[in-house]
């Protein structure tokens, strides 16, 4: 197991390097000259060639590409993502707290999603084909077609304005979590409960279930056996879900004015603040790879067969 973990982590390092390189290349492909963007953002009225050269030297843009990449990479590893073009503040001081806020939202939503989808998945699998199963699946199909921002706006309108029960935006107390978490959970639980349901159904007809039943094991215990086996698939998918939710809270954060990464990234895209966009992409891509690795390790811990693969 130990050697598997080490191997798996070693495999993800080149991937992280490639990702960081691509992120760097991507930003450098931009049609705009960063020096020009900085000067514009700082409100310099007249941009002269001299000023451009000076800014370029300040930003280190006059060095060769590869050297700039390694300089940047080393700095990033120390959480130094440069300064925002617009405000001049260090990127980390902006993105750090935002990342934390998004992480809070993601973790709470993920927990709700996992609990909801396991509950619904188990109920639907055990009652396959009944009205409960059909209606839950039909309803989730309907919810999957609903634009999340529309649902969010409707919920704000109903719960926050009409009933005046919950805050409409910001993150002041635990009550601010309820609406955004509900929207995210509704969006994703509808997808993930199917995973649990399908893998439960695949296990229902296995030999060990028949054997346990023949031995007179009580149904509740059998259900627990099935659940444990079918959660294997689900766990890896849940692990993958966390970074996906982390990345796709953009819309929800903007609707609820959540002070997280999503709001920050959209704002910096609109103001073309490249260092922030770069840091945002890098952090999320790294999170994606890390969770991917984590899900593989958890799977291998549960299923020894998978350890041989690497």
């Amino acid at each position, binding site marked *: 197991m130990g050697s598997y973990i080490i191997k798996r982590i070693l495999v993800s390092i080149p991937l992280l390097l490639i990702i960081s390189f691509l992120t760097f290349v991507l930003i450098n492909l931009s049609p705009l000259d960063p020096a020009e963007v900085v000067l514009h953002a700082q409100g310099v009225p007249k941009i002269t060639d001299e000023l451009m050269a000076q800014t370029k030297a300040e930003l280190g843009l006059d060095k060769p590409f590869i050297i700039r990449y390694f300089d940047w990479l080393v700095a990033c590893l120390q959480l130094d993502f440069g300064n925002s073009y617009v405000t001049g503040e260090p990127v980390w001081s902006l993105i750090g707290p935002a990342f934390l806020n998004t992480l809070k939202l993601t973790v709470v939503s993920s927990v709700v999603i996992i609990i909801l989808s396991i509950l619904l998945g188990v109920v639907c699998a055990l009652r396959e084909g009944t009205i409960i199963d059909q209606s839950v699946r039909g309803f989730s199909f309907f919810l999957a077609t609903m634009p999340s921002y529309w649902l969010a706006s409707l919920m704000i309108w109903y719960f926050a304005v009409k009933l005046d029960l919950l805050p409409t935006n910001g993150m002041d107390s635990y009550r601010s979590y309820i609406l955004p978490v509900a929207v995210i959970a509704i969006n994703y639980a509808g997808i993930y409960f199917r995973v649990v349901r399908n893998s439960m159904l695949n296990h229902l007809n296995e030999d060990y279930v028949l054997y346990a039943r023949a031995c007179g094991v009580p149904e509740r215990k059998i259900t627990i056996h099935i659940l444990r086996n079918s959660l294997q698939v689900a766990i890896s998918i849940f692990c993958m879900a966390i970074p996906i939710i982390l990345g796709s809270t953009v819309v929800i954060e903007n609707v609820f004015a959540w002070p997280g990464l999503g709001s920050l*990234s959209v704002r910096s895209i609109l103001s073309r603040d490249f260092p922030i966009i770069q840091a945002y992409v890098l952090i999320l891509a790294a999170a994606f790879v890390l969770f991917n690795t984590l899900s593989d390790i958890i799977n291998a811990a549960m299923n020894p067969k998978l350890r041989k693969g690497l």
Partner: protein
Amino acid sequence: MKILRSLSKDRLAAVSFIVIVVTIVAGIFAPYIAPHDPNEVNMKLRFAAPSWEYLLGNDHLGRCMLSRLIYGIRPSVLWVLGALLISVLIGAIVGFIAGYFRGKVDFFMMRICDIMLSFPGYVMTLAVVGILGVGLKNVLIAFILMKWAWFARVIRTSVMQYAELDYVKFSKVAGMSDIKIIWKHIVPVTLSDIAVVSSGSMGSMILQISGFSFLGLGIQAPNAEWGMMLNEARQVMFSRPELMLAPGLATIIVVSSFNFLSDALQVALDPKLISSTNRLQEKEVATKKRGGKIYEYTRS
């Protein structure tokens, strides 16, 4: 024709198909169908209730909601469809080359796909838009850049199933050229898989792209687009919540039609199921196949 006939047996699929065709036709002929100019501002009619003249009422600038909805089909559905077709085409070319020729080409191309797929799609789309600048064109370019790898993977798997079959080997021995084999023997059989995969992604793509417009990163005012209309309606949500209904419902109807159609296509295009009259069996296969779709959801 056969496909159409078997689709028409499934009433839900038939309705979905009609909805999609009507939407597309309405989008193409928007100038002839829309009762008013979508960008015509009429401040006297601000927030006017539905009337015979303006069937869905007017928005915050007194523009005709129905006309905006109809013109909105173009960016919300037609352009998305175009972007989807381009990325499927790129994915198909890569998938056919990798799946048919195998070897080093396959290895090289699949590693590229792996790297592309190891990025979180949504974030990368956002990044590409951030670099190219806001606008519907850039959102679509970003989607094509991020989506082709996924299609390439799926199409490659499908091609590989057939590339090793006896009749393909026979054609090779008989001296048929590779391009001719692909075109005559492999494209026709994989077409159904491609259709299912692409129609399955259409729904989520419409949602995501209108989400970008909703955030103000996609199409720019004064153009009409459903996500954009929702964003405009959101500004006056507290006083006029009813403005959010029409664009939201339009999105839901079109997206669910694409999803239903994709599910029905899976059944209709599977040659083993065309002759089968046993509904139960069809359903079983459909739910089994849906497993693959869930994987796709989790990817995007």
